[in-house]
């Protein structure tokens, strides 16, 4: 059905960055160059965790012009669904994984005269590639990066060294320094674009502050890392594939379908891109929409569900898949 352009890769290096963050470098098994990409892009990494297929999206943080390899950074999430723990504990140099083509849902607006980046914690990764691009093209940018403590914050020293303190500002929770969002948003030249990536609360706060300061929403960009939320197991019938299945507590509908051999379309696996939009044929219960893609009207209609993150509570859900 869908054309498979995934690339088998070898793990070329695993580098500890902080206690909780590791960097992974991937190179292609077939010796071909990696595709170029644009700052803000992510790839989906497929892992075989003892027979369980895990697919997680990670932002690319290597130089977009370097086709010798891709680099990602993975935060170890204590109550993770398994992907980040697997990457941290199992993956070693020389191992094989599969990486998708790059997808960019967080691209810089090329018309921007200046770009202001707000990062919280591991949300720094897409900005590392973006800043490479801005600096290559001689485009004005500044980064405001909030970390918990200097020892827990990833890459802040390297970024300061590379781009200097005028462009890189570090804020440390432990030292009670916080990003003065209102002050920054208050006085910027026309044509400035603002980007935020980090925890949900930070994203909401930055966007709201900027909107209140009168920014047009077209100039505001954000990327949320939505992991499929856990919930009670439920039953789904995939009508086209004729599959009855149970979606487990820590599984998404998409993951359950894949485990049953159904080749469902997907791209971001985070409720943002719309690729896995699936038609609901019947629903005896309540759809729990967790995506940021469907409009309020589409949700109210009860006819569509984004199977990468959304769940269901009730007797029976029938999907056209």
């Amino acid at each position, binding site marked *: 059905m869908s054309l498979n352009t995934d690339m088998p890769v070898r793990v070329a290096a695993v580098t500890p960055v902080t206690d909780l963050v590791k960097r992974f470098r991937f190179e292609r098994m077939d010796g071909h160059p990696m*595709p170029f*990409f644009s700052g803000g892009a992510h790839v989906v990494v497929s892992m075989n965790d003892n027979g369980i297929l895990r697919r997680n999206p990670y932002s690319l943080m290597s130089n977009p012009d370097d086709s010798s390899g891709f680099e990602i950074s993975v935060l170890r999430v204590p109550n993770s669904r398994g992907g980040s723990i697997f990457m941290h504990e199992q993956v070693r140099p020389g191992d094989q994984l599969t990486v998708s083509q790059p997808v960019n849902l967080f*691209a810089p607006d090329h018309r921007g005269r200046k770009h202001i980046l707000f990062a919280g914690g591991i949300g720094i990764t897409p900005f590392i590639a973006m800043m490479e691009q801005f600096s290559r093209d001689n485009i004005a940018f500044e980064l405001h990066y909030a970390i918990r403590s200097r020892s827990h914050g990833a890459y802040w020293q390297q970024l300061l060294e590379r781009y200097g303190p005028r462009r890189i500002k570090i804020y440390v929770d432990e030292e009670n320094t916080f990003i003065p969002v209102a002050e920054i948003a208050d006085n910027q030249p026309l044509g400035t674009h603002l980007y935020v990536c980090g925890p949900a609360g930070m994203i909401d706060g930055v966007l709201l502050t900027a909107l209140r300061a009168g920014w047009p929403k*077209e100039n505001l960009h954000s990327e949320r890392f939505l992991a499929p939320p856990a919930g009670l197991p439920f039953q789904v019938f995939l009508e086209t594939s004729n599959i009855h299945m149970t979606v487990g507590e820590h599984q998404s509908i998409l993951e359950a379908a894949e485990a049953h051999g159904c080749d469902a379309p997907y*791209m971001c696996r985070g409720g943002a891109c719309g690729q896995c939009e699936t038609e609901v044929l019947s629903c005896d219960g309540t759809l729990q929409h967790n995506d940021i893609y469907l409009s309020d009207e589409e949700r109210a209609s009860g006819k569509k569900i984004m199977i990468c993150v959304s769940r269901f509570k009730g007797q029976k859900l029938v999907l056209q898949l």
Partner: protein
Amino acid sequence: MTITFRNETFRDDFTFRNSLYNIRRFPFPFDRDEYMYSVNMEPHVRGKKDSVFENLIDVDEHYVAEMLDRALVLKEDPLRCQALPHMMAAQWDTLELLMEHQAQDYSEHFTLTKNGDRWRWINRPMGIDDTFTFGDPSTLPYPPMEYITRQAQGDFCIVDQRDNNLWMDAGMVTTQADWSLDFDIGMNFMEWHGPVPLAHQIGVFDRALKFLLNLQQGKPTRRLNWTMTVNPRLDTSPENYHKWGPDRATVTPENVGEKMHLRVELQSLWRLPRSNAILFVIRCYLISFNELVTVPKWGRRLPRVLKSLPPEIVDYKGLTRNRPIMLDWLEKYDDGSPTSPGIFPD
């Protein structure tokens, strides 16, 4: 494969013809005996040998003549090629994509040698041998998109992606079916498709836009579109309507086979890696009715499709005046036999 390039014109004396080989590889757009709009997109992957789908960027016997015609159009009207300032990364993406495909699939005619950022490009049919620095526009005689699209068949639009929409922000458009880049530049997907009838009401463009916003690197997609053109004229632009519009009144039952051409666009869409923009290639193929009916399946099918066209589409494609003449002439080639599914000759 070595292509023998034809010496021919697309204006004035109209010496354009298809060779027998080229007739059989024509992308006949109708896969059944009736016609309707749909989101008829499919993966742009290599197809049958000796078809226009054999290579993803097709070069054929009309290459040199088409490039000469493009140069004439640009000389009269430089606004056929435009790029907004934020599209420079996408221009380089386009240059890289076209050079790589042409050099890989037509190595007798094109050679690309890369030494880091220092690239050498040889185009033998056009007698070009240039060395330049990738990423530095000052090392090329034209901006990168104009440079390479003066050496590649088809029209090219580069659309930027932002705010959940696509924006026509650059292009080289000289072989168009009555639309203008100068008019459309800066418009978004819904705006530039505004004039198309019927399709909006059935949601074709909403679905197409959603699909294209998610177009992935390494997975180009394609569709065929068509219209009819009197005389083998590539430049049927609104700017030059005064030159080609009156041609419609010159069609008679005696000359329709020679004058009327089916005009097919093979449209392919590519996600560009460095810019995240989309390259929209609109490759135009022309075939006269005389040439077309030499393939019996196409001779049977074309009149059936023409008969089934809704009036809005007949009107939109500018066929109202000559449809009766075309049908009278074409129906001689329809013996009523069933046709095989698909677009290829039997």
